[in-house]
Every structure is written in C-alpha cells, then in structure tokens.
C-alpha cells in the first residue's frame, strides 16, 4: 500500500516537475517563467521527501524557492523584462552551440539513467545511522569535521560577495545624494 502510494506520488510530482521545467523555457513572460521555476523547485523538494531526505527538501525550499526565485522575480520586475528578446533567426552560431550543448547533456543524462555507470561517491552513512541521529545532525557533523575547510571557504566567499554588494549599493546612493535632503542619515 505504502509503496503504491509512493510510486503514485512520485509519478505525479515528476510530471509536475517536468511540466514546470518546460514552462520555464517556453513561457514568453519572464515572470511566468520564474513562477514555473518555483513550481519545479517545490516539486523537487517533495521528491526529496519521498526519498526520505527531509533536510535536503527543506533546504531546497528555503534556499531555492524561498530566496533565489524571489531575487529572480525582483530583477525581472524591476528591470522590466516585459519585452521579448529578438533573435536574428534560427540558424546561427548561438543556436548551434545551444543544440550541441543540449545533445551532450542529453547523452550524459541518458547514460546516467540507463547504464547506471555515473554515480556519485557513496559515503559511509547508512539510512539506519541517519535515522538514529537525525539528518540535520548528520549533515552538520559532516560539514564541521570532514568538510570544514570548504565550508569556511564558501562562507568567506559569500562574505566577500555581500561586501561587494554593499559597496556597489553605496556608490549608487552617492550618485543621487546630490539632491537636497532635510534629514541626516
């Protein structure tokens, strides 16, 4: 019973994910594309839940759906991406490159799915272990022991990015500061 339910859910969610992914590409309106992306992310998160990976699912929702797509939307809305880009025509180097890249991607994915030869590294943790200590703890332990250096590097990188954004924002503010202003910042 539970297995059938899981399969049914998987098919439904996978369908949603694929349709949403297609929607990202084929929507003419950039905001609709971003919304399709959101739907895709949420469907993926649910798939993670089916795989018993709640932590990843939550992170998927919080980071991708909750933050990144919002930023996409902001950019699309504020920069007014209403007008569609005009392509010169179908046959040009750009299209050729895209088609080639798509074919390579398709081959890789196909190999991965049907041959099962491309596998990620398999860690030492087993589902039983994880169930015992909890997923968050398992991830946290891994991050702060084995992967401490990459983790810290990533955080420094993010910090640099944030500072850069602040600096750029300040410069922009300086440009309009020439106006009379009655208040002291």
């Amino acid at each position, binding site marked *: *019973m*539970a297995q059938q*339910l899981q399969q049914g859910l998987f098919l439904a969610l996978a369908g949603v994910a694929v349709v949403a992914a297609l929607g990202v590409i084929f929507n003419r*309106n950039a*905001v*609709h594309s971003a*919304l399709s992306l*959101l739907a895709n992310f949420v469907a993926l998160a649910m798939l993670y839940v089916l795989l018993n990976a*709640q*932590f990843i699912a*939550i*992170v998927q*929702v*919080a980071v991708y*759906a*909750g*933050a990144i797509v*919002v930023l996409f*939307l*902001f950019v699309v*809305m*504020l920069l007014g991406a209403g007008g569609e880009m005009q392509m010169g025509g179908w046959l040009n180097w750009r299209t050729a490159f895209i088609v080639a890249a798509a074919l390579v991607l398709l081959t890789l994915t196909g190999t991965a799915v049907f041959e099962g030869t491309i596998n990620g590294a398999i860690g030492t943790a087993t589902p039983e272990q994880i169930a015992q200590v*909890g*997923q*968050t703890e398992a991830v946290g332990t891994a991050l702060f022991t084995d992967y401490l250096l990459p983790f810290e590097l990533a955080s420094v990188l993010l910090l640099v990015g944030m500072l850069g954004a602040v600096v750029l924002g300040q410069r922009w503010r300086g440009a309009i500061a020439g106006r009379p202003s009655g208040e002291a910042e």
Partner: protein
Amino acid sequence: MDWISLLLVPAIKSLVVVVALLTGFAYLSYVERKLVARFQVRYGPNRAGPFGILQPISDALKMVFKEEIVPLNVDHVVYLLSPALTVMPALVIWAVIPVSGASFTLFGQTITPYVSDVNVGLLYILAIASLATYGIVLAGWSSNNKYSLLGALRTSSQMLSYELPMGITLVSVLLIAGSLSLVDIVQAQRGVWFALLQPIGFIIYFICGLAEAGRSPFDLPETENELVSGFATEYGGIKFALFFMGEYIHMITISALATTFFLGGWYGPFVNQIPVLGLVYFLIKVAFMIFLIVWIRASLPRIRYDKLMHFCWKFLLPLSLLNLVVTAVVLVLVG
C-alpha cells in the same frame, strides 16, 4: 488498515486544522474589532446577532457576493493566483505545530495532537515562511499599479529581512532544546519556559513575528495612508478577503509559534493529570499573544520604511547574533 493511518487520519487532521484556522481567522477579525473598539471607547460590531457575533459571517457573505472587478491590463493568471499563494503557506505551517501534549485513541487509532512530527520541524517553518513572500510580490506586480508595486517591494524586502534575525533567534532555541522537532522543543520546556531562558530571544522573535505578519507598527505592506492599500490596492471581494485571511492566519501562526518556542506550548499546571488542559493552555497562550498584537496596533505609530530596515539590519540582526553566541557559550560552560 494501513491506509487509514497513512492517508485518512492525516487528511482528517489537516481538515480539522484548516477549518479551525478559517473559523479562527473569521472570529479573530471579530475579536480584533471588538478589542480595538474597546481601546477606542467604541462598541465595535454589535448589529449582526447578539454582541455582533454573526458579523464575521455577514462579512464573509458580503465578500463572496461582491462583484468581481479585475482591472484593465493586469496579468490575469498571476493576479488570480497570488491571493491563494498568500493563504497557502500560512495554513501549511500548521502541519508541524503540536497543539496539545497527549495523544488519544479514537476508533482504535492513536491520534497525535499534530499533523506531522518531522525531525526538521523548525527548518520547515522557516522554509514555508519564506514562501509567504510570493503571494505579495506577485500581487503587487500583476496588479499593474504603482502603489501595489511599491507596497509589494516594501513588503517582500521587509519579510526577507526579518526572516534573518528570526531564524537566528530560533537557532538559540534550538541550541537549548537540542532538537528541531517542535514536539521535542515543547517537551524541553517542561521545567522552565524558554521565554525566561531567552528573554532577548523572545522579544526579538516577537518583533520579527510582527514584521513577518505585517502587523503594526510594521504594517508597511498596507500603509493605507501612504500606499492606499499597498499590494492589495487592486483587489476586491473574495480576492481581497484571501489576503486578509492570509494576514490573520499569519498572526495566529506567529502567536502559536511564540507559544511553542517560548511559552512552553501546552505545558501548564495539572496538564499531566488532565490531558485536555494542554489544548486549553495552548489556546490561552495563543490568545494572549494575539491580544498583545492587537493592543500594540491600537497604541503605536507606524515605523517609517527605511527606519524599519535599519532597525532590522543594524540592530536586530547583530543583537540576535550576539544572543546566539552568548547562548552557545553559556551552554558549553554549563555543559
């Protein structure tokens, strides 16, 4: 019998939660109007039914039967989708909130007092809360109105900003409780409420909660005096009611979470002897928090938008970080 515990019980529990929340929303609007009226030496609604208790129903009927007005040049799909997107997260959060301590048995099934006890409950809440922005951003964008757009931008940046100190404060709670499950967090408060262990955290959480729910003095989303009605300017009838519903359910949710994280959830005297008292305590605490929120609304002016952001980034965020560090250090020292 497998499918009963797998499908039917959660479905019924979800239904109960949703119905309770919708009723709660309707009567919360009534209670708020009555309370504010008393603060302002007025009577409040008193025409529909005794003491006006049928007022929410008549309001709902009015909203439903209002003419559907869709302005020219709106993005129809998004325009109609966004009210739903606002209500959904507010409802979905309730899946992990435990409303009482004791499970009970009904028709041979053990019913737990929550829809689901996931071991990432706290993260789940943060993740779902971050989705609440969408309804507002999209409503503002799709309405094709300058006021709506300004309101939507304000609101979404406000909500995104206040999630940070809120999340960090909840990490302090998490450190003390040692679990992400809301049930465990409440059980960790068997002896002392976290509001006493984390007074600063409680205040930060409450402030952020007000900002997240867009309640006074952080009610920048609407700011009817500046932006007419903010992101909801072009909405009317049932579509507007959905935004309204989202805001009020959000308010209930914030109060329930404050209760769960800081006020000991269902715990109270004699709760072990009489399990049903757990639900009563929970409701009383939630009601108290809601009363606080309404009281604040009746007494405080509204913060200006830029000061609101400064307050969050330059005061609340460092304070919550400091709180987190102090909590961690103390925990390590105490062991």
